[in-house]
């Protein structure tokens, strides 16, 4: 049962977490906020950005702020599933007898940075993705449960696509949010250089424990959602499907595949967290609109027409929101 204390705690802690991570991250405030939202909501994040923009640093700062163990997995083409999950090794016991001992892989952590996930083979990818979905690891016929909270932040390099294994849509759908880290501005770049000249170490301090994070997650779930706002979110997801009659005309032309029901779940879950983080006790249209981009951009597949006309996923989401908001006004 959520108490007032929990609510007050949520508000206070979420601000502190953002502040602490902000010590280590210059700019990228929206990415940081969305990542924290995803973590509180219990989802995983797919992070896209060119090298050196701070993807690893973000994850490490989050690990420090949430006081959660952190591990980094660099995905390479020769990475094996056992390298991710762990494997059984032969060990001599005290009596000198050989026995098989399961050596846990780097996945047995709370915050995982899966760097350049698209460079590994599909088999290796699936090992991680199974853990993401099930929060379990199966090795040697035995299933090991991962401790909660379990948060994966996977990265993709948008530049070097040669020799990579792009994640299939079904796998990409498991990520709650997809965040894009852009190249910092000149001012931000200047601040980064200034900061890192002093020290490269993360300065974020621990603010939360795992237990507290889970409590925050539970608290956020209690936020009420008005029927109209819920319907609005559902209509947004439905509008991404060209096969549905109620979808706008440009959906038929520019979207090949629409978002799954996981997108609808992700929208509401993250919107609740966002509302509470902003001190509100109800989800608003603004929450849905703000989270539409990270929730939907990796779930809708642009058609060939969109690719040919260089219309990206974000632009399509903007059009969808405009279409929905105009209908809302006429009602």
């Amino acid at each position, binding site marked *: 049962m959520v108490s*007032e204390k929990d609510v007050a705690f949520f508000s206070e802690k979420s601000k502190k977490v953002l502040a602490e991570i902000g010590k280590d991250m210059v700019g990228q405030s929206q990415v940081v906020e969305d990542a924290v939202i995803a973590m509180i909501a219990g989802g995983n994040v797919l992070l896209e950005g060119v090298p050196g923009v701070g993807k690893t640093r973000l994850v490490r700062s989050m690990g420090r702020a949430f006081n959660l163990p952190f591990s980094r997995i660099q995905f390479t083409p020769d990475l094996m599933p056992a390298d991710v999950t762990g494997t059984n090794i032969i060990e001599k016991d005290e009596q000198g007898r050989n026995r098989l001992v399961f050596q846990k892989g780097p996945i047995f952590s709370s915050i995982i940075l899966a760097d350049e996930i698209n460079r590994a083979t599909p088999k290796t990818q699936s090992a991680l993705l199974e853990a993401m979905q099930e929060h379990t690891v199966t090795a040697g016929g035995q299933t090991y449960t991962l401790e909660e909270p379990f948060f994966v932040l996977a990265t993709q390099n948008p530049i070097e696509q040669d020799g990579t294994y792009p994640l299939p849509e079904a796998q990409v759908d498991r990520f709650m949010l997809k965040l894009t880290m852009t190249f910092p501005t000149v001012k931000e770049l200047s601040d980064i250089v200034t900061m890192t000249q002093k020290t490269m170490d993360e300065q974020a301090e621990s603010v939360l424990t795992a237990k507290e994070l889970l409590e925050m997650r539970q608290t956020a779930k*209690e936020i*009420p959602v*008005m*029927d109209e706002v819920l319907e609005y979110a559902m209509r947004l997801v439905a509008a991404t499907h060209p096969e549905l009659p109620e979808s706008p005309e440009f959906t038929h032309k520019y979207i090949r595949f629409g978002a799954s029901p996981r997108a609808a779940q992700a929208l509401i879950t993250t919107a609740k967290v966002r509302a509470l983080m902003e001190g*509100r*006790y*109800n989800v*608003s249209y603004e929450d849905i609109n703000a989270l539409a981009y990270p929730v939907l951009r990796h779930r809708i597949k642009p058609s060939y027409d969109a690719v040919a006309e260089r219309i990206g996923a974000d632009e399509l989401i903007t059009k969808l929101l405009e279409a929905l908001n105009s209908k809302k006004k006429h009602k």
Partner: protein
Amino acid sequence: MEYKKLLGRFRWRLFWQALVRSVLWGLTAGAAALFISSLIWHLLIKTPPFIWIFGGFFAGFIVGFIPCMCLHFPTKRRTATRLDETGLQERVGTMLEFHKQKGLMVELQRQDAAEHIQATAVKKLRLHISLKELLAFLIAAALCTAMLLIPYDLLAPPPEKPEEVSAWENQVHTMIDDLRQQIRDSHLSAEAQAELEAILAQLEQDLLNADSELEQAALIQQAQEDMQDVLYNTVTRRIIGRALQQYDLTTALGAQICADLPWEISDEMDNLLRDITGPTKQLTKLSNNIGNALEISGVDPTDRLYMAFYDFSTGLVDMVNYTDGPDATPAWTMSDLEFLFELAEQRIIEALEEQSHDEAEVANMDGLISSGLQSLMEEAGMETAPQQGGQQQSIGQSNKQPQSGGDGNSSGTPVGGLFDSGDSNSERTTMLEGIYDPLSGDVTYGEVFAAYYAQYLQALDAGEIPEDLRPYFERYFSSLS
């Protein structure tokens, strides 16, 4: 939590806004209904009872007011939706939706919503009236006002003419038809009949369109003169006579031909013979005068009078040719010339006597026309002089001297015609005679005024009145009419 109290302020504001919009729509619908109702009465060309006008407006007002009020009445949900303008929609909507639920979060949400509602000014809710609504109202009001101002008998047919006007029309038709029939029954040539009928047809049309009795009298007068001209021109001797008057040697002869006085013609032929001093040249000239006159007259060459003059002219040429050269002594004697003149004279007089029958027909026609037009003039209400005697003078029996020279058109001296008594010893009582004989003493101004007016109209049409004098003429006749 008493959310009703919380939202009461906003609901009242929204209620007044709904009322204003509903009244606007009611007035628009009422004006439209009033427009339609008035239009129907206009088409029926009847003045509607007040209850129709008022009832139509009232019914339209209700039709416009009630649905609009229902549409915009501030229910809970509508209030929450409108509160979107103040940024409170999600808070208020969530509060209303979960107001029955219990739980910490919903309770906190209600408290949060209440705080924000209380902190929001009511004035943030603005009255929504679109340009289309205002435009609809203005158009409906304009149409309604226009329809009320337009007279209800605008589409009514013009009033029927009074019976007296219709009777006058019938009289005109009857009299003109009688005259028309008389012309057809006459023995005048087809061309003459057609011309006379055309004049009658024009007169008939003009009389029906005339605005005043004076104008009617002037039209009748003009028609009479035109018809007399036509009749005048049917007499061959007049045509030839006028043509002869255009040449030096035959001027006097032509005048006598027009006057139809046989003894005068004989005297004139004697005079002509006596005046021939240089025989050859004068004979040639005489022959040329007669030939040219015949040519310009346009009379049918088989006409007896034409042939008489033609033979005379040919005889003169033969007489001239009966000499050896122009300076040679003529071979003919004076007695030969006298014989030629006597023969020509005899033939001319015979031709004239033969034409007298035709002229009698023409004179009879003239008399009929004159009496018919006189009756029409009486029906038009104009004074006419009483006729004395029953015999009417024929066209050929004028005791006036015809004009010499010119084109021979003596329309200024119509002979006979309307009101002519035919008795040379009686007082002349014609309208026109009053003009030409101011010493008659018995002509009233009303009798002559129509003729004056007709002359004025003729002169005006012909452009004979100077522009700077026209206002004086107009004022003169309009003051006397």
